[in-house]
């Protein structure tokens, strides 16, 4: 839980300071490489943190003035309901972040002695 919140907060700050979207991949990757205890944990943390952030962020804008634009972009993608764009936004971030965190963890594993790592899912969530 802490990891998720930290990840989320770091991405949020970086996204507010810079226009780059890819913090949702970099931060979870770094987390996976530096701190995650398992692949599953890494994936979950990245997935939830980024998904939550982009989902909440888009929901906020949806509620406060971006409903029309969400409808138009939804129509561009052939979706009928504007609200679906919130889910789509959250999914894009969650998927990318989860994969990045998992890759980070895989890199981390390169530097660990084999056998020491036990892949216990979800221990730090």
């Amino acid at each position, binding site marked *: 839980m802490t990891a998720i919140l930290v990840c989320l907060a770091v991405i949020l700050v970086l996204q507010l300071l810079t226009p780059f*979207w890819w913090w949702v*991949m970099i931060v979870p990757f770094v987390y996976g490489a530096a701190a995650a205890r398992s692949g599953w944990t890494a994936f979950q943390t990245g997935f939830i943190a980024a998904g939550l952030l982009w989902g909440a962020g888009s929901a*906020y804008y949806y509620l406060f003035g971006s409903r*029309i*634009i969400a409808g*138009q972009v939804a129509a*561009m*993608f052939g979706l009928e309901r504007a609200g679906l764009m919130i889910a789509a936004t959250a999914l894009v971030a969650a998927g990318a972040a989860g994969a990045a965190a998992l890759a980070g963890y895989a890199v981390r594993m390169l530097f660990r002695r084999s056998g020491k790592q036990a892949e216990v899912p979800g221990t730090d969530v």
Partner: protein
Amino acid sequence: MKIIRAAVSLLVVALIFWGLNNSHGRIPPLGKLMNPFAGFWQNGERTDALPEDLVVDGLAGKVRILWDTRRVPHIFAENDTDLYFAQGYVAALLRLWQMEFQVLHVGGRLAEIVGPAALPLDRFHRRFGMLWAAEKMDRAFADHSETRRIIDAYAAGVNAFIAGLKTRDLPLEYKILDYRPEPWTGVKSALLLMSMSYTLAGGSMDPAMTALREALGEDILDTLFPYHSPLVEPVIPKGTSWDFTPVPIPPVPESSRKPGANSNPNKNEPAFAGPILRPFGTRPGPGIGSNNWAVSGRLTQSGFPILCNDMHLGLNLPAVWYELQLSAPGVRVRGVSFPGAPAVVAGFNENIAWGYTNGGSDILDWYAITFKDESRSEYLYGGQWRKTMVREEEIKIRGADHVVDRVLYTHHGPVVRLQGEPAFDVADIPPDAALRWLAHEPSNEILALHRLNRAAHHDDFVKALETWSSPAQNVAYVDNRGDIAIVHAGAFPLRWKGQGRYILDGADPDHDWPGWIPTEHLPLVKNPERGFVSSANQAPAGPDYPYYLGWNYVSFERGARINEILAESVDITPKDMIRMQNDVLGLRPRKVLPALLNHLESERLSDIETWCFEQLRGWNFEYRWDSPAPTVFREFWNALNRLIWDDERPNGMERMPRPAGDVTIDLILNHPESAFFDDKTTPEKETLRDIARLAFRDAVEKLEERRGPPGDAWQWGKVKGTRIGHLARIPGLGRDNLVVDGDGTAIRAVGMDWGPSWTMVVEMGSEPRAWGIYPGGQSGNPGSKHYDDFIDDWIAGEPYELLFLKSADDDHPRIVKRTVLRGVK
């Protein structure tokens, strides 16, 4: 194992990153686009916040901008340079993406944004000389210090806005198409003007006419495509005396009379080798159908003259126009402007009001070129070989190597398509022919607009238009002294009668344009006896006008309807004029339908045919959205035209270009025995009666096939299905399935994707009162509620009263925001 796992994970992540960071065909870069903090979510109504006071580098003094409830900026500057700077800034604020996209499109640079798919279109625009001419025009701006100052101030204003733009504030389309705005330049403003010339005066029937002449002979052609259409009331009323002695008109050269003399010397390929002759691609379609009229104070209730104008263009979002007021010492003007060019284009100031319809005169000719050999490095002219010039056009392509296109130029102009090259999709271009087009000549419409904005009376108006060259326009005028006028403005080559109707001989110096019609000899009328002036894209003058201007004008219907209403009007009010702009009575059916129905009287009809017949018989000729009668009439008319004309087409031509509506109507009403009614493809000899019956049956059958049994699906508005598409055709960003009254042949000429792009009524009293509307909204941002907020009122035909402020200190209840721009001290 761990290495493989890590490598695969990294590869997958890299792929995801690459996939989300870049666009792929029609899929935008999803990572950038969906990012809630800088992607499309930022383009919602927060962009509607009007700017606070700003310090902007480049301003000499203080500029005050007052925004009204419809988001119209009223700009007050201390000098002209600041005024145009502020206009550029505001235009970019409202419509940056649109202004840049339009010029990238016309300048042949779309492939830079969308990739190889746009290459053919880019190549076409480069070949057509758009960029070449815009660069020339920009250089010519430098010859006139005032124009240069206006253009540069405007560009500086646009660039000041771009400089302050953060990624998250980029207009939506930049995010979808994944590119960034580049600095604005004078060339870009020139390209915007070029694009209007292309839209309004870039078509040509010359290749088709050349082919038809060879197949049918000149006599038949002169009947089907007459120099003066039978039913047309010209813009300048018949009987108006010409107050000048004409300059000598060049004689028709003997060489032009030889059959086939003007066609392409290389006969391997017919001149009309385009993929199709589009129904409206080459003739002025009703889409380019605008109206303007001015009534004298004698006819109005208030005693003040009234000017009315509705300019019809392709319907797009963002809209082609935006509204504004420009004020500085010596000028206070209100109206509409193009995003991308300075000054008010159509509108009014304290003293005058003016508005346009497209002139339609012929300013584009094709010259068949005789090249010496396959290298095409020399061409024949006046018995000598001249060197061909080459301009290399570098076309950058997103995701691919750039292409260099070597465009050949003769002294006439560019050779748009070479023999053996595939046809262009967008236009019917004769091979190995050079394009001579007035819009390629450097001209100064910007100065004309600048002066029109400041004109105080008729002499100023005439003087302002001296530098108007292209596209030719009928400009209607009123002023607060009570004068009304209309002029066919532009530059026009001095031609022999019919010069440029067919492809000309590029080797014969006698076929060149020898000079120009003097400006003071242009068709013009001021304060005519009848108390009004009007135009609707029809011929500017009748056969008594001494010069030849062209032949391919719009049919009679709208012009005659305007004149008919005004001739019977007294005590006119602005409200009456708004009602008239919404008039949907079709003169075409009123004129021709009774005669056609007569031919069906004794016919045995099926139930559905009887129903259709009754619809037509009971029709009041109004193109109302909920009526099925216009649907039946249009289908009937199209079938009739097909049956009358398509059998006349020469071998190899896919579709016969349609003679104008008035020619067909004249034939039906006044020459019912004409041999044109016979279908040459059958052994029998058909009469008008036979053709009318066949056409009616065919029309009803087609309608039933497409729309089922008569019902709501037959309603005119639904059949027409008006839509206002997004400029870049991005799905979801336009408005579809609009149900609107009107037709291209009625005053309210709303079609499927064209219609009144700006509708205006101005009563020119001591303080002008005006109404106006356009189909769109002031904001170019699809996420703004001001993107399309005028459309419903536009459909209803209810224009807004236009706020015209006297000073920046005005305290009008409709002002919602004041912004002050200051220069850096």
